């Protein structure tokens, strides 16, 4: 029994937990972070699963990380370096390919090979998405107001929301309203005619969501992924040196330098609640820690259905959390390679494309079929993949001359019929490799080691309920003032002094640091 009292305890050392702890410490609080794993980072992590090869076993790229977090926590000083990912390569089985280069003329040239019309539309599409993203981005930094409430705070925030949106051009406002309610596929059909272009653009709408590109609501997800920026360049994805684990290490270092105490191998079993007020936590080994502020970085389901005794929560709230949609379709595959994959459709002289994203997303139909296969507890026979060869960007990721390949893969249901087990894992891993080998036939000959994280593994490893990469679907019914539950979308919970700071809260998943930072603002509002 430890009687030391902290100002705040953060349950979970995911990137949001670390960000939250750092901001609280910056405001003068004495903060303890308790992480169940042997290392911090949560899903923002790099691990040397196979000696010499640093695997990105969960997240792999950074885009939506709020620049405020980088500046205010001085992450550069703590070792953060983000290299922009320059291109997207979409190999096709008919020998052709599509590419997006960091250069306007070059991209236009590539798209014109498929459709001149699309090459022109592409400019306008990108500008439009950037304008919309620019308009909605300030919302990410707001603590969501309750639109039905008339408290001065909520009213003031609603006014800000309105202010943000009223800056929009009229036609953009209508477009935004439509985009928010449409499917990514239908939206893209309005813009483009070429199949591979629509395929690759649709992927932004399905990343991490258990929805197909034709599911209404994926339009919003599409936009969500446009909101990120690096150095002011919208829709830029970057690779952190050392992988995304490099980022969590930088945040942890910043947190420590601000006085945050971090304990790993410390799984919390229960939040201690007395008379409706959270006062501390009990670890699985029985140790107890006390503080005035308890913050959970775990997802909403884990937090309220596992860590808190239900007698402390109102029924309707529990129902909201129970119905929070969290089934997940995403897997992560890492390969240790003896050389580079040779894509049949990659022309000589364009090898630079291997340094960017490599997308197996030849068409919207391909993606929708991949979803169809998985919808009823199955997996895609031909999965969608967002692949990357990080060792081409950061040679430290693999031994000299060797490479790693990271593949984000959809869809494989978290509710797999019959349940996941080692055999099923191996079977799906083969599906992934077979699919990729159709595009890069030498792949199987250069694999030194292969590794898969299914939703089952993501749950077991990171405590992500159903392995959901965003702590719950980014669908409209559970965003903004509805995330994770109406009335409790402002990082506060029905239990006094108990807060949430993970991706189940606004603005949701991805490596943003926004929930962690916003939650700190809310906490400091209550307890300056």
């Amino acid at each position: 029994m430890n009687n030391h009292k902290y100002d705040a305890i953060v349950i979970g050392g995911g990137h949001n937990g670390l960000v939250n702890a750092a901001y609280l410490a910056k405001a003068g609080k004495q903060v303890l972070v308790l992480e169940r794993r042997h290392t911090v980072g949560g899903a923002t992590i790099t691990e040397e699963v196979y000696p010499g090869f640093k695997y990105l076993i969960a997240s792999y790229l950074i885009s939506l990380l709020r620049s405020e977090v980088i500046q205010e926590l001085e992450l550069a000083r703590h070792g953060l370096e983000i290299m922009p990912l320059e291109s997207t390569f979409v190999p096709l089985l008919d020998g052709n390919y599509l590419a997006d280069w960091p250069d306007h003329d070059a991209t236009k040239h590539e798209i014109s090979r498929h459709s001149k019309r699309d090459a022109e539309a592409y400019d306008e599409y990108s500008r439009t998405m950037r304008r919309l993203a620019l308009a909605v981005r300030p919302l990410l930094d707001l603590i969501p107001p309750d639109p039905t409430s008339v408290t001065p705070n909520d009213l003031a925030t609603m006014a800000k929301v309105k202010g943000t949106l009223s800056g929009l051009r009229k036609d953009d406002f209508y477009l935004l309203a439509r985009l928010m309610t449409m499917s990514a596929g239908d939206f893209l059909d309005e813009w483009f005619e070429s199949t591979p272009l629509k395929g690759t653009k649709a992927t932004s709408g399905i990343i991490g969501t258990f929805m197909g590109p034709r599911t209404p609501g994926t339009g919003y997800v599409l936009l969500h992924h446009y909101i990120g920026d690096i150095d002011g360049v919208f829709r830029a994805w970057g690779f952190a040196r050392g992988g995304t684990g490099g980022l969590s290490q930088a945040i942890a270092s910043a947190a420590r330098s601000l006085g945050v105490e971090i304990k790993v191998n410390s799984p919390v079993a229960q939040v201690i609640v007395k008379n409706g007020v959270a006062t501390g936590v009990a670890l699985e080994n029985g140790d107890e820690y006390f503080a005035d502020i308890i913050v959970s970085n775990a997802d909403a389901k884990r937090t309220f259905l596992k860590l808190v005794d239900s007698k402390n929560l109102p029924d309707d709230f529990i129902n909201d959390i129970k119905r929070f949609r969290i089934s997940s379709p995403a897997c992560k595959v890492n390969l240790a390679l003896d050389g580079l994959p040779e894509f049949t459709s990659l022309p000589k002289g364009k090898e630079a494309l291997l340094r960017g994203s490599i997308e197996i997303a030849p068409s919207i139909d391909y993606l929708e079929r991949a979803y169809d296969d998985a919808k009823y507890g199955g997996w895609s026979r031909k999965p969608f993949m967002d692949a990357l060869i990080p060792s081409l960007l950061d040679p430290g990721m693999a031994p000299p001359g060797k490479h790693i390949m990271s593949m984000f893969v959809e869809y494989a249901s978290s509710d797999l019929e019959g349940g996941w087990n080692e055999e099923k894992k191996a079977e799906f891993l083969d599906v992934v490799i077979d699919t990729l080998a159709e595009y890069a036939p030498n792949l199987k000959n250069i694999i030194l080691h292969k590794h898969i994280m299914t939703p089952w593994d993501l749950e077991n490893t990171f405590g992500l309920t159903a392995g959901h990469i965003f702590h719950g679907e980014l669908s409209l019914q559970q965003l903004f003032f509805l995330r994770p539950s109406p009335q409790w979308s402002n990082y506060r919970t029905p239990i006094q002094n108990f807060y949430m700071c993970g991706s189940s809260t606004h603005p949701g998943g991805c490596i943003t640091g926004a929930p962690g930072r916003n939650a700190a603002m809310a906490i400091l509002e209550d307890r300056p």
Partner: protein
Amino acid sequence: MLKSSPFHSRTAPLMQADQWRRWAGYRAVSAYEMTHDREYLALRNACVLIDVSPLCKYHITGKDSLSFLNRLVTRDVSKCSIGGMLYTPWCNSQGKIIDDGTIAHLSENTYRLTSAEPNLRWLEDNAIGMEVKIQDVSEEIAALALQGPKSRDLLMTLTDAPLASLKYYRFVNTSIAGVPVMISRTGYTGDLGFEIWLESSQASTEAVWDALIQAGRAFALQPAGIWALDVARIEAGLIMLDIDYTPANKAMIDGQTSTPLELGLDWAISWNKGNFVGRKALLAEKQQGSSVTLVGLEIDHKEFERQHNQLALIAPYPFTAWRTMLPLAFEGKQIGYATCGVWSPTLKKYIAFGHLQSQFAINGTIVTIDLDVDRYRRPFNAKVTKLPFFNPARKKDVL
């Protein structure tokens, strides 16, 4: 990765100082020589040959082609008989300019439209329900601008076509060195000049280029790049997309867009040809008056020179045009912005384009522009004048 012009095999060997630039995804020449002075001087005093192949070109055919074009652009295309060309802007439904270019009436129901930016999608979207065929022929057609006072004399040694009597904005079909060409009395220099249009095969482009260079020896012909062209087009008061206006479909906010009325193109709007895209908005603007007006500015270069001399410096006149937005002020308050400026070697004036709140767009008004004097930034007077700055009679004369 940049595309090469169909004349690349001829232009590349002439390049002396690697002064290439981008133009619509093509590699284009800024200047062949180490400096562009001689290229500009040849343009106004002899003749120059400029590769303008990167222009976008569209063939528009079909029974509805005239009504389609008349719906699309602001000018009345029905006034353009076969063998004629016209310059015109086109707008979106808010009357905001999207692009500007020329239309040539090639034959019955057949037109060619040129533009600075690709417009295929805009054209197709506006052709819905009409019997027209729109073909992007940008890569199939090569183009050269032969500009300058001696251009006609030169061309007349290469073809029997009636160039002596060819009027401004008319064209003829003929051949040069056995290659079929269309020669139009058009250009972007405000001078006597022609544009030569031909199919883009290497055999054709090389034959025509070689013939022009060969014949040009007697007329001090000089291949020239965009730097020389840019000086000339500013003198001639001709606007440039992306520099003097942001096309409406590229603008992030309404404040970045312009209308033809604001850009001094009221003469290029036909109010009584029937409806066209943007007409309603433009008519309202015409009735209320435009809030912004494009004007010429003559910057007080004597003062510019004096201030440099005071520091024991020679005034660094911009012989290459600057293309940045500089604020323009009246009594210390910003009332507009300039978009480009250059020293005019012909006029011996420091000229610029200004976009002024209309109440200041009166000839003779003095506004100020901030310019660098070595390490300092100082306001200089600039006098509002009418465009163009330079408009020689030879531009339109016939023999």
